[in-house]
């Protein structure tokens, strides 16, 4: 009998909507030990690359490995910071410029923990999670995004 938690599925199809974010915030109003929330939202930019404008990013992932890595990152953050709650969602498939592709949400009694945790999580996600982004231009051609 294993007590290990199965990794949750972090991925959602398509963009993350403002309504989903509002619902998630509202769910925390019963948790009256929370004093601060820090939310990071990644939004797709209409970057200009070699004279062409990005109209969307088409996300794919090595899902089993990505969910396992998200799980490890979450566990590490719970160890490092005194958090009440932590939620992470990432898009798969097409996300248009201006839409949200990443939602990282941490909550804590005091602001220091949520501030540091959200930043830690975003940096870890960018460097460790196997998610791939095809930047699609207005003319249908594409290039591949690479995190710095």
């Amino acid at each position, binding site marked *: 009998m294993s007590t290990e938690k199965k990794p949750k599925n972090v991925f959602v199809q398509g963009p993350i909507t403002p309504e989903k974010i509002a619902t998630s915030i509202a769910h925390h109003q019963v948790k009256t030990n929370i004093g601060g929330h820090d939310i990071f939202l*990644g939004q797709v930019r209409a970057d200009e690359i070699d004279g062409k404008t990005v109209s969307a*990013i088409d*996300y*794919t*992932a*090595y899902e*089993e*490995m*990505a969910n*396992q*890595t998200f799980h490890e990152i979450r566990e590490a953050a719970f160890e490092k910071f005194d958090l009440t709650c932590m939620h992470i969602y*990432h898009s798969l498939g097409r996300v248009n410029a201006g839409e949200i*592709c*990443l939602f990282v949400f941490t909550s804590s009694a005091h602001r220091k923990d949520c501030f540091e945790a959200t930043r830690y999580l*975003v940096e870890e*996600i*960018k*460097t*460790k*999670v*196997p*998610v*791939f*982004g*095809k930047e699609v231009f207005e003319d249908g051609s594409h290039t*591949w*995004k*690479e*995190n710095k």
Partner: protein
Amino acid sequence: MKLNVKYFGMIAEWAGSENGQLDFSGTSVAELRCEIEKRIPGLNSASYQIAVNHVVAANEAIITLGDEIAILPPFAGG
């Protein structure tokens, strides 16, 4: 040994497929790199990582039959 290999992102594009099978006679990840670079044009000058069983593997890591192999281009999450 016969290895099943997954390709992602731009590497899947170069490979023309998201899955491939490879007849591999070596043992280490370094040897696997050489083998795969022979098959996928452009890969030898690209930046990529190899995951073995969902974990990024160092060049010294040993590959055994049944391992899940994935060839990962640079990450772009977030």
